[in-house]
């Protein structure tokens, strides 16, 4: 579980996050949604320690992450899987080497052990047989899968995904979303996904967090989101003709 308590963050006197308090539970896929520029990425970077919150606390389990130094945080960083936007694979390394990278950094596993673990993770994302390919030989969806395999290679307790299905066609996007959701339940991971795709919300949103201009505007499940009277949230949810038609 991750607890966010009264987090504030400003850039050049300009507040980007305003008093955010939240919890993300284990085994659940938590979605952070909001318009472009609302502060989703800033919140996510604060969560993983790539940015420091100006005020407030971030607590992993019962460890106060905010109070820790860089070295102490390594204990927690070992349990964080990260899925970067656009996969961000190392182009110079094979699929297997990409998946093994966090293992080399965080563990003292032998090469054999790492290879076995990588094979397991690739199998889990349905990419068996792709292990010796180079990233340039993969489709966008496959790259995303490799990135997921890399993120879960260290058996993380927490998984952060930045717009995991951006740039994918709708069926592939859904497949990736589903994969993340399945893995979350299967390995009992606390997953936080940053997205502005309503399809993702409807498919996998166990808990949906709506950020509006840096404020926590609304929290609920994907079932509740369609029936809220909140104007700003409705503007976001029913931004497309498709959703408006569906509503009728």
């Amino acid at each position, binding site marked *: 579980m991750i607890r966010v308590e009264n987090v504030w963050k400003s850039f050049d006197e300009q507040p980007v996050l305003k008093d955010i308090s939240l919890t993300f539970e284990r085994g659940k896929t938590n979605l952070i949604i909001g318009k472009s520029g609302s502060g989703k*990425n800033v919140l996510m970077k604060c969560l993983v320690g790539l940015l420091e919150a100006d005020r407030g606390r971030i607590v992993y389990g019962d460890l106060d992450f905010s109070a820790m130094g860089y070295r102490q945080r390594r204990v927690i960083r070992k349990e964080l899987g990260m899925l*970067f936007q656009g996969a*961000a694979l190392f182009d110079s390394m094979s699929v297997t080497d990409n998946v093994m990278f966090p293992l*080399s*950094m965080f563990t003292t596993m032998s090469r054999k052990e790492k290879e076995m673990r990588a094979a397991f993770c690739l199998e889990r994302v349905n990419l068996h047989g792709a292990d010796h390919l180079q990233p340039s030989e993969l489709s966008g969806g496959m790259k995303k899968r490799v990135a997921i395999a890399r993120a879960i290679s*260290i058996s993380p307790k927490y998984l952060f995904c930045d717009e995991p299905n951006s740039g994918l066609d709708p069926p592939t996007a859904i497949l990736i979303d589903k994969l993340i959701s399945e893995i979350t339940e299967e390995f009992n991971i606390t997953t936080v996904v940053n997205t502005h795709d309503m399809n993702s919300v409807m498919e996998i949103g166990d808990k949906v967090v709506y950020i509006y201009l840096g404020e926590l505007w609304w929290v609920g499940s994907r079932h509740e989101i369609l029936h809220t009277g909140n104007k700003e949230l409705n503007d976001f949810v029913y931004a497309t003709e498709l959703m408006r038609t569906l509503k009728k």
Partner: protein
Amino acid sequence: MLHTLILIAKLIRESALFALTSIVANKLRTVLTLLGITIGIFAIISVFSVVDSLERQIRESISALGDNVVYIKKWPWTFDTDLQWWQYANRPSPRLRELEEVQRRTGSVEAAAFLASTRRRVEYLTTSVESVSIAGVSADYDQVRNFSLHSGRYFSQTESSAGRNAIILGYDLAENLFPNTDPIGRSVKLFGHNMTVIGVFEKEGLGGFGDTHDDSAVIPIQTLAQFINVDQDRYGPFIMAKPHPGITNAELIDDLTGVMRSIRRLPPVAENNFSLNETSLLTEGFDELFAIITLAGWIIGGFSILVGGFGIANIMFVSVRERTSIIGIQKALGAKNYFILWQFLFEAVLLSLIGGIVGLLLVFGGTAIVVSVFEIDFLLSASNILLGVNVSIVIGLVAGFLPSWSASRMDPVVAIRSTA
């Protein structure tokens, strides 16, 4: 502790992989930068190889002359006294008779020999070689001058003292006169007489002082004396004296000076009318020359290497900038600072090393060509290879340090901004 070391070793290997792929991906840029290092290493190591080879050859030919042998001659090898050239010219040459006196009266001389030479035609059947250098040597020549025989033997005591018609041929001369036959026991014609070939010298190659036996022939001095007056100036007569073991050159020279002065009955006020030349002094001039050539090699090579080093530093800065987001992702996925540092440092060293090795290969190719074209013994020694490799590694480390350091210190937030 061991655990940490193993991890570091693993990380370096991971870094190396990263580095290698990046070098391969930027071939052209890599090649251009490496040119400086290649030229620098080529300049330094080839100069070193030339100096080494020359030094070795000179040392070898001096030891062939006998490195502690003193040559009693009319002319000095180096003009360091304040005599005028005509004063030297008026000196008498050493005579054959003086050799016996030197042998008899000196205490420090173990062996001494007299040598005079001229040029004549040598014939075998219908083959002949013009203007062959013919040296007449006294019996103990073999104890003073180092040489080995390809076949046959040296003159016997009787052949020497009785002036028999025996001849020892230089290797190349023997090849020319006897292309298909074994010369030993055959007769060649010299001074209109038949001389029996009793030996052939081993091939000596290009000596440092052009005194190789290869194209010449040697006969007993008493034989030569039957055809020419060996004491005459024009035959360049001289005496070689080699000291007993343990006698220093200074002692030998003292002894020889005293004996020669008394043989020639010089009054105390008179200058020496002979020169005592030491082979060991010959190297001194060369030492200085080599020091200058070596310095020149370092300076020329050093400039190229400096340029190459800046090139590598530049490439590395570019490379760090290009890979900003990769560094960020690596850091986010757990890479520690030293992993990043090693990665770039290793890349810089690898670059420099590739440049250096290409330079060494060029030197190697060059030596192979020189050896085959000029037939001189010239090689790229292991210690010079090691020097080239070490210089390259050091350049890589020095040039790569700053860029690598800046990469390792990069703020992951900045690094990752473009990606996350």
